[in-house]
């Protein structure tokens, strides 16, 4: 699995981090340098320029003597002792100023020079400019910048070291980012490897921080749960075929074989064949119900989702079943608002509700009442929903069986004597799940209240 470093996403992230850090630190250092050392240089130059301006005015007002006096005055008043002046005659001999002789390097006027000088026997650094005066006189104005130069060196050193430390930090940070990144995906990667290896119960552990990685882990876990449910469904169907269908198949086979061996009359033979055919039809019906549930659970029917009004649908179901209810002296009533917005596959929801009503009528005692109560749920985070409850006064489902009641082929003890395949509630549950809703089975004391919760509107594409 080891590939080149450049193919490693963690390495790339680490490098991006380091490069970003180096670029921003470099920019900061440059700005610091410009704002401190650069500023000092600019201040020195401004001071020299203003000196030159003043001295030029002096020269124009009083000629050479005035200039000499001004220079001497300035030197005596110079508290910081960093001003440099030198006035020389055309033969470069000193007339006034605090420099012993004209520095040999300074040849051109109005050009900045930075050069070492000797002042009172001490070596120092100066920044100077030369001005040519009428009559062949030359004036040198400058500042002793030894202290500033030292400061600048200090600053440069500090920034240099700072950058070096920063590079170290960047490298360290890069390593840290890389390991953090690896740790964040290590759990996902380990889970995927475990699942690929056959440990299907494994899930991604959450760090509990609720960050993006936790969100990703949650999404992955939800996906794994869904895959698990689908696989359970497939397993249940194959188990059902292996076990639950074996009984009716055995019955049909026995009847036909028995008739072939023992039937004495043609009439008896025909009757046995007809019963066998009816048994086979029953098996086919169970098969179709199983396939239908699998089809719904696979979720491929979402293309048929649309908005519709649930009330006419409820009325139609009640209309279909009320004659059956009347036969058994059971009353069937719909309690619903004038209209009820619903979103989903109307055919499937109708099928699910028909199953619930069919059950309710089937299990009602004589003289009992079945109520279909529909109402809009107040809008929650999901934009509200529709709650359709089917109440009956039958035996209900004991608490202990309720969780298993929606399993395929599960039939409660009390339901064994009533005809049915044990697939109805499994189908209702599958329809509810397809619609992002739930099927709740509650005690209506006495009886059962089956509540189907659906959404009222299309989910917002998030």
């Amino acid at each position, binding site marked *: 699995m080891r590939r080149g470093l450049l193919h490693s996403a963690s390495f790339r992230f680490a490098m991006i981090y380091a490069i970003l850090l180096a670029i921003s630190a470099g920019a900061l250092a440059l700005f610091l340098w410009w704002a401190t050392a650069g500023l000092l240089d600019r201040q020195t130059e401004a001071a020299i320029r203003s000196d030159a301006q003043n001295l030029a005015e002096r020269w124009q007002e009083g000629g050479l003597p005035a200039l000499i006096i001004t220079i001497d005055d300035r030197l005596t008043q110079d508290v910081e002792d960093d001003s440099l002046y030198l006035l020389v005659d055309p033969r470069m001999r000193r007339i006034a100023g605090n420099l012993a002789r004209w520095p040999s390097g300074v040849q051109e006027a109005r050009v900045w020079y930075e050069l070492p000088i000797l002042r009172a026997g001490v070596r120092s650094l100066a920044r100077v400019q030369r001005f040519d005066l009428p009559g062949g006189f030359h004036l040198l104005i400058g500042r002793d910048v030894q202290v500033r130069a030292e400061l600048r060196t200090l600053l440069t050193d500090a920034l240099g070291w700072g950058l070096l430390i920063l590079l170290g930090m960047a490298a360290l940070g890069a390593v840290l980012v890389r390991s953090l990144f690896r740790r964040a995906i290590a759990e996902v990667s380990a889970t995927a490897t475990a699942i690929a290896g056959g440990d299907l119960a494994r899930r991604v552990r959450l760090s509990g921080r609720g960050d993006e990685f936790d969100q990703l882990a949650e999404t992955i876990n939800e996906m794994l749960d869904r895959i698990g449910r689908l696989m359970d469904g497939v397993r249940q169907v194959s188990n059902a075929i292996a076990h639950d269908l074996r009984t009716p198949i055995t019955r049909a086979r026995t009847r036909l074989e028995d008739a072939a061996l023992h039937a004495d009359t043609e009439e008896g033979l025909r009757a046995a064949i*007809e019963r066998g055919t009816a048994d*086979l*039809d029953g098996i*086919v*019906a169970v098969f*179709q119900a199983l*396939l239908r549930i699998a*089809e719904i659970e696979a979720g*491929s*029917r979402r293309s048929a989702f649309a908005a519709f009004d649930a009330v006419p649908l409820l009325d*139609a179901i009640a*209309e*279909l*079943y009320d*004659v*059956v209810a009347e*036969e058994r002296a059971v009353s069937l009533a719909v309690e619903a608002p004038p209209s009820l917005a619903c979103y989903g596959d109307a*055919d499937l929801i*109708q*099928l699910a509700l*028909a199953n619930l009503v*069919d059950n309710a*009528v*089937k299990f009602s005692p004589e003289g009992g009442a079945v109520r279909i109560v529909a109402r809009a749920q107040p809008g929650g985070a999901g934009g509200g929903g529709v709650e359709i409850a089917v109440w009956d006064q039958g035996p209900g489902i004991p608490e202990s069986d309720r969780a298993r009641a929606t399993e395929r082929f599960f039939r409660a003890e009390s339901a064994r004597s009533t005809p*049915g*395949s044990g697939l109805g509630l499994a189908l209702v549950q599958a329809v509810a799940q397809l619609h992002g809703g739930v099927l709740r089975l509650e005690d209506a004391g006495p009886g059962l209240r089956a509540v189907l919760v659906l959404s009222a509107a299309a989910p917002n594409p998030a």
Partner: protein
Amino acid sequence: MRILVVEDDKDVAGFVVRGLREAGHVVEHADNGRDGLFLAASEAFDAVILDRMLPGGIDGLRLLETLRGQKNTIPVLILSALAEVDERVRGLKSGGDDYLTKPFAFAELLARVEALARRGKGEGPVTKLTVADLELDLLSRLVRRAGQKIDLQPREFRLLEYLMRHAGQVVTRTMLLEGVWDYHFDPQTNVIDVHVSRLRQKVDKPYPVPLIHTVRNAGYMLRPESA
């Protein structure tokens, strides 16, 4: 009636052909798509029973689409083992008039194909249906028997209308469920029987001659004389 059966399974085809002939129909049989298409396009039939998965390069849907492409409006009943809702929708979209999934009961197949063949001979819009002394007026929505008015619920009216439109034919429970209630699933319990027995109470009970008959192992039939 002349009926064309396009089906490659020998047992199923033999059973269907024999059954249709016993019911008094003239039957042609093709065991592959190519022959089926040739027969359907060149000869006149009242209905076609068409399997979907056929050998010979032309499957049922291709055959059907080709026929419809030639503006051939012969009623076609698709008989297929492909039972998913989407497959049924595809079959009907390709031009099928009815869709029956395998395994099937012969009575159901016969009832549906006869209903289809007769529908093909539509005699235009009707405003009044009459069977013996029973009259149903589609405009005023009144039902009379022997001159006496019978009060029916809207759904009972539609049930009777369906039975009268198919008078003399067997109508199965699933056909009623689809045609009257527009439900495409099997409600398992005997809801249809209960609805029909309700209707009988009003339409047949007070009169000497019953019109609605139960056909064993198949469904119901509304016809003038008892047999």
